[in-house]
């Protein structure tokens, strides 16, 4: 319970911000926080609070997996790479052939989620395939 006390502000913020399917569980000295934030802004806010309690996330006592609820089929996503193009692949995996590219800051459509990591997307140019979810942010 000590970890839940340490991260009380974070857990309280997750609860009060309308994060759904929230699960907070401590296992082997690590606090696992899972949930679905109502928006990307809420997700960012939760990560900011986490970073305030544990500067630079170096303590290693939290694993926080917050998805954004607006990332549903049909949603528009912005390509949030640092500056490069995002590879669109034939299948979910970096070993899969590249079938297209989406430019940095381009807006694409989410078709479905193959997993938390690989999402099936379509660009306005018609390229369709799997891209890494880490570089896709729902448009709000």
């Amino acid at each position, binding site marked *: 319970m000590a970890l839940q006390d340490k991260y009380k502000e974070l857990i309280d913020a997750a609860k009060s911000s309308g994060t759904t399917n929230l699960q907070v569980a401590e296992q082997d000295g690590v606090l696992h926080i899972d949930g679905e934030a109502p928006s990307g802004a809420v997700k960012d806010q939760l990560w900011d609070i986490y970073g305030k309690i544990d500067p630079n996330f170096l303590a290693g006592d939290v694993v926080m997996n917050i998805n954004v609820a607006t990332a549903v089929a049909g949603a528009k996503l912005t390509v949030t790479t640092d500056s490069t193009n995002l590879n669109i692949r034939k299948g979910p995996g970096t070993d899969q052939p590249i079938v297209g590219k989406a430019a940095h800051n381009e807006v694409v459509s989410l078709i479905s989620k193959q997993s938390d*990591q690989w999402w099936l997307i379509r660009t306005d140019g018609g390229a369709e395939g799997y891209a890494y979810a880490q570089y896709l942010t729902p448009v709000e």
Partner: protein
Amino acid sequence: MTMKMKHLTSLALAAGLMFMISCKSKPKDADIKAAVVAALQSSPGVSADVKDGVVTLTGAVANEADKDAAENTAKVTAGVKSVVDNITVTPPPPPPPAAPVATADDALKTSVADIVKDFPGITADVKDGVITITGEAKADRWKKLKMALDALKPKKVDASGLKVK
């Protein structure tokens, strides 16, 4: 004479019928209770008591639908005048939250390699569901990496060997 006999017979029949009807309209509470209890076999946890044809239902069920079902069952039982439904609804306790399931090492290793390749200067190792990060990174880059790694549902992300610039 025959006419008189017939008249008498029908009179007797009518009297008998009257008797039967009056009997039927006033069944004994015990009989009603037995019928209600039998009809309530499908509603465990509900018990019934009968007084002057009025059934009182007590007990606890899991949801509103079961409560309504028991009440309706009692209502349609022969001889029941009315039903007092004192059944309480107590939903079963929610199942305890499942323990977080960590991703298996092989799947985790592949996913970690996919992510870390975009973060030069950082090396990642995976063992028993724990991701160990070493190297150097700027604070904002490390935050991005940590967010991506946490989404893989590891047991732990050990960054004690990481230098944040």
